[in-house]
């Protein structure tokens, strides 16, 4: 994960703000509101020590990724340094510092899925969505991730779409599902980039 950004990722992270470039943080999300949200999450815990990863999980669930501002608030409130939070956010695969698409597609590439054709599913979805594994489509509609074993091996190959398991997946069944999701989005357009979505 650390080598995802080409040059000096830590500097890159600290000296850019969320609002430029990717245009991810909604401008109306003021610091006060973020503080309120982070405090609310912190109130679930009697002590911070030992629970940092759980807290970061909750932040990611709330914003759908780990935006910088809430992490700054978290650092202020708990005394952990931004460096520490950054190290955790980049070490663990589950965390993302970049916004993710409205629909998250996770292709399981566990052993059972691998021998039953997961690599082909990855190829096919990369082609279908026009992105590489780990990326998000430009319209912020789909993110594609290969994950290591979701523990539903007896139904291999398995794909999770927005947390729902699709067993015995084939390129055909996936294309069908993507089209269905696209159609649903067309009929009920719901505010674009998926920020603040609860998975």
């Amino acid at each position: 994960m650390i080598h995802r950004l080409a040059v000096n990722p830590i500097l890159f992270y600290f000296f850019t703000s969320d609002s430029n470039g990717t245009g991810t943080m909604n401008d109306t999300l003021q610091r006060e509101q973020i503080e309120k949200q982070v405090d609310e999450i912190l109130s679930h815990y009697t002590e911070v020590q030992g629970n940092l990863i759980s807290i970061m999980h909750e932040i990611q669930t709330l914003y759908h990724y780990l935006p910088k501002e809430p992490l700054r608030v978290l650092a202020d409130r708990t005394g952990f340094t931004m460096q520490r939070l950054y190290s955790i956010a980049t070490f663990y695969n589950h965390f993302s510092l970049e916004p993710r698409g409205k629909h998250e597609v996770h292709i399981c590439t566990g052993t059972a899925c691998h021998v039953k054709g997961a690599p082909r599913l990855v190829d096919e979805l990369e082609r279908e969505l026009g992105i590489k594994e780990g990326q998000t489509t430009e319209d912020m509609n789909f993110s594609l991730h290969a994950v290591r074993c979701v523990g539903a091996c007896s139904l291999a190959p398995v794909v999770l779409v927005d947390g729902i398991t699709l067993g015995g997946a084939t390129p055909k069944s996936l294309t069908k599902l993507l089209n269905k999701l696209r159609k649903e989005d067309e009929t009920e357009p719901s505010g674009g980039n998926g920020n603040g979505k609860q998975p």
Partner: protein
Amino acid sequence: MAPGTAAQRESGRTFRPENVDVVIRVCVGPGGIAAGAMDVIAAFEAEIERHGLHTAVEERPCSCGILKVGCKGLCARDVLVDIMQGDHIVTYQYVKPAMVPTIIEQHILGGEPVEKWRTDDDYDHFHRRQEKILLKQCGVVDPENIGTYFEVGGYKGAREALLQHTPEEVIDIVTRSQLRGRGGAGFPAGVKWAATRRARGNLKYLICNADEGDPGAFMDRALLEGSPHSVIEGMVIAGYAIGAVQGYIYVRAEYPLAVKRLRHAFAEAYEHGLLGKNIFGSGADFDLEIRLGAGAFVCGEATALISSCEDRIGTPRVKPPRTAASGLWGRPTNINNVETFANVPIIIRRGAEWYRSIGTEASPGTKLFSLVGKVKNTGLIEVPMGMTLREIVEEIGGGVPDGKTLKAVQTGGPSGGCIPLELMDTPVDFEHLQALGSIMGSGGMVVMDEDSCMVDVARYFLEFCRDESCGQCTPCRDGTRVMVRLLEDICAGRGTPEHLERLEALGKAMEAGSLCGLGESAPNPVLSTLRYFRDEYEAHIYEKRCPAKVCKELITFCIDEEKCTGCVVCKRACPHEAISGEKKQLHVIDQDACVRCGICLDVCRFDAVYKE
């Protein structure tokens, strides 16, 4: 006697199976839910509502209740539904919501089981050779209802341990049972407990390792989701034995349902006084909390797991000191796997001698395996230690489907190895698997057939280890990287004999020089496939040929002139427009445009497309 007062036992039961005439048991294990168990349950509820089957009425003396149970084993047939009328059980397979009205009307109301949807002989074969000790509860109790766990003798073991034995006696029983850690290494649990008990310091911790990261394994998930109380009960006993008052269950974030069910189970256990202060009036205290992982395989290693519990990145450290001397926050800490803890209450209840009578002399008891891959009956199984691989794959698993031949069985995940067909009669226990260059691991068992390329499999595992290496020590960080590159070369037909020598040398260096188990065992998949499937490597190198026809660079897709009817199905399906040919004329694949995705092979109804 179930633990707790009668009133406590009462309140634990929101649903009493004996109060209804028909119990509908639906599998809500990992496989069941993925196959749509929740929709099936909703359909049953709607039908029960529609027919007014909640209570018996005079003209129709029949009432129904739905019981959600954990993994029933044969996940390939999910959703599995048992219709229980007294002792009479009828099991349906592949149940879909649309089938529910018929089951209710024809079977429950009409008394005629729907024969075509019932489980067949495979289901019996699958269960016949198994010995279910841990899984016995899994498919019977409702994971979200402690009352159903009491009914199968739940918390009796903890009660006995805390009220009738001293901590030393408990450790003695577990030591005599020769229970070995089920996380992979097989270290005797009793010895570990005794070391933590002996360690200096008043504050000690107990951790349950539920960071089941091995791809192809879901035993711990099934246990946590199917019978969370058996793990909690095992931890209460272990906490008492080693003198820990605080325990943690470290669960990987990929298992949200396990977390949810554990939290629910904690609340129930606290409510019944099975966690907290003065458990059973014994004076012993024990608290449990959940610690969440966040997707890092290396956190299955004990010291990395502890580092993760301490709000840091999961990097292992050098041992000694062992965690029993200095673990979480520098305190003595005992870490065991989910399955190990689940064994403990049963050992206490039935005795060390009884436990030792199951399995082999050096590895007593049973072991859970997730039997997956190219095998007919995929699912979760429990067998006594010492059963041979052939028995597991052929008799329980029903063999390889589609008339293909078995090639190898992969055990132990990325740290394990591939065991070839010739060695299928090996008994499965810690020693035998290790002697073959594989390991028992946590219990993933992936069956591979003639269509699996062993070089590709080795590359797959090395890629996994490369991605999951914490990056701390050089042999693992760089070794996995170089190994992947060498294997990629071989798969792409660029391999030379020197590649094999380098792989072997690197593998030995990594085994000797890595800091933790991940790096030490990362070369296993390569070394074991080199040992048993060297000819496949050599075919890739000398003949530039992939015998299993998997490695894309070494295969071509062709269309059989005799068989092609010119139906244009493959032409339309090809995403790269690599197939040419008019209707009713022979189709031809343009090899330059072809990316070898294999879609044409799937869609062709005349078997005209083949790999070469």
